């Protein structure tokens, strides 16, 4: 297994290089000359040429790619064309918002999903079980941005409990947390349903196993057996899935941040795309995919650790 883990780690390096190349290729193809965008309509040809020299835009493709990769390795992602800020700084400002959103979304999903799933499994074939199954099916079917709009419509407009827009004042923790509730819930709804179904299935399997029967034969209290013994093992499949979920949530966060107007990574990307701000688009997507690669790596490794029966070559 150690061999697999090491191999999996090493495979990340060419992947990241490939990601850099693809990103560079995409933005290389993007129409419009960054130099003239930077300088505006009054630019003289000499000035444009000077900027092009400075940004290595006159060099051939592969040199530009090389400079780009070297820069990325040094965390130097260039400067924003519109605002002139350092791209790494813009990303560093935006990233905590996205990470907080993704983690709290994941937390809500895991908590509610696992509890309802376990409850449904212990109350199998009862009324509540059917309701939970139905609810989880509906929850899985609602895409995160639709959920966000519906939640906003109900809890910000019809019953104005939550503030609709913004991430709150920096430093004001209760305010920020309060403003995180709706976005995180919207992000979590699909995963809640999914985790609930997954937990129910795995819990039912565990409840059927011999050691649970033994525990019951010793007259251990029903609830104790279910939650102390069974849930511990039943929780493993949902937990491994959460790793994959972390990466997927990043994509969903784009929509949520636009809808709730939160200054995160997704909003940074979308705004930069509309403003044709290439360095920001490149940098922000790079960071998003690095996080995604990291989440997938952790998920794969946790699979290997949790289930030693899987053979890797």
């Amino acid at each position, binding site marked *: 297994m150690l061999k697999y883990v090491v191999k999996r780690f090493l495979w990340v390096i060419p992947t990241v290089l490939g990601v850099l190349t693809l990103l560079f290729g995409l933005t290389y193809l993007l129409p419009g000359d960054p130099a003239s965008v930077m300088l505006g309509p009054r630019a003289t040809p000499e000035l444009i040429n000077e900027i092009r020299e400075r940004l290595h835009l006159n060099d051939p493709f592969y040199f530009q790619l090389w400079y780009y990769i070297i820069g990325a390795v040094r965390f130097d992602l260039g400067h924003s064309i519109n605002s002139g800020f350092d791209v790494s700084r813009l990303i560093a400002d935006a990233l905590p918002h996205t990470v907080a959103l993704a983690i709290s979304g994941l937390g809500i999903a895991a908590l509610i999903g696992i509890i309802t799933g376990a409850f449904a499994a212990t109350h199998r074939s009862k009324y509540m079980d059917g309701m939970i199954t139905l609810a989880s*099916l509906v929850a899985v*079917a*609602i895409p995160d941005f*639709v959920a966000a709009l519906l939640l906003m419509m109900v809890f910000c407009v019809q019953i104005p409990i939550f503030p609709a827009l913004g991430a709150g004042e920096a430093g004001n923790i209760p305010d920020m947390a309060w403003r995180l509730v709706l976005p995180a819930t919207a992000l979590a709804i699909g995963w809640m349903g999914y985790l609930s179904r997954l937990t129910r299935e795995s819990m039912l399997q565990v409840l059927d196993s011999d050691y649970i029967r033994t525990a019951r034969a010793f007259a251990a209290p029903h609830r104790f057996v279910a939650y102390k013994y069974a849930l511990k093992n039943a929780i493993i499949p949902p937990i491994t899935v959460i790793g994959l979920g972390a990466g997927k949530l990043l994509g969903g966060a784009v929509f949520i941040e636009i809808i709730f107007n939160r200054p995160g990574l997704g909003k940074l990307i979308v705004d930069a795309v509309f403003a044709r701000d290439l360095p920001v*688009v490149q940098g922000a997507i790079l960071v998003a995919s690095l996080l995604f690669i990291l989440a997938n790596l952790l998920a794969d490794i946790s699979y290997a650790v949790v289930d030693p029966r899987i053979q890797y070559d």
Partner: protein
Amino acid sequence: MITTTFANNGQAQQRTRVSFRRPLRVTLAETTRAILRNRGGCWIGTVLVAMMLVTAILGPFVFPIDPNLQDIANRFAGPSASHLLGTDYLGRDLLARLICGCRIAMSVAFGSISLSAIVGVILGVISGYLEGSKLDYATIFVFDVVRSFPQVVLALAVVAVLGCSMLNLILALAFTVFPFYGRIARAQTLSVKESDYVKAAEAMGLNRMKIIFRHIVPNILAPVIVCLGMDLATIIIYEAGLSFLGLGVRPPTASWGIMLRNGYRYIETSPWMILWPAVAISLSMIAFSLFSEGLRVALDPKQRQRNV
């Protein structure tokens, strides 16, 4: 066949005997679940998918109201006899726009999925058949690189490069999905190519192209088709999402995402503008996931026997 059925029965009996629960009875919960999941669910899903396809194809002929026709006097109207689902901020009929959106969603979904499945399967099969070659490694590498972007973000970047239009949206979404088909096709090919009929075809001296397309491709399609069903739902959501961001279909055209975008702007005054497209998107997600679940059962002989 008889033996397997018998084995399954035996297992089932044993399970009921050792468990401490009462024997399974037909309860409301079990029935709902049976309807929602296996055969019943597949049935509902198939009907819903068929309805959506019919709406997409025949809708504009059955319900001939121009989705862009403005009725300014009746802006923000709720459901009424003249506008069955109400109107939006320009007085455009929401039902007509929903139908138009259904057309767009279906064409984008089927277009990009068939494109990505064709490209993915061809690449995957070739790479699997030539396992260990440089071409194989190169293909796997491309798959892995594309898969290491969050799908929405990659689609967004590709659309930004190509420009907003329906064709570009289809290309962008196909680009983000094709590695998944490639991986499935490759994994299947690795097992199929060891089978006797492929060995026989090789021994007969058939050329590689013939072996790949006559003997391997038809035998790896089942899992690919199952994936198709699920991915159609995903693509519908991505289409709506990207159009919502303003990076998909161009605004005057009624896509579900654009309807949501308009609804978002008037969220305080007109709930209908958000509600209907939201229902349509969620319903299509339910439809396609039930449908694909049914497909999975139908295409997997083991599952099929368990359910008969």
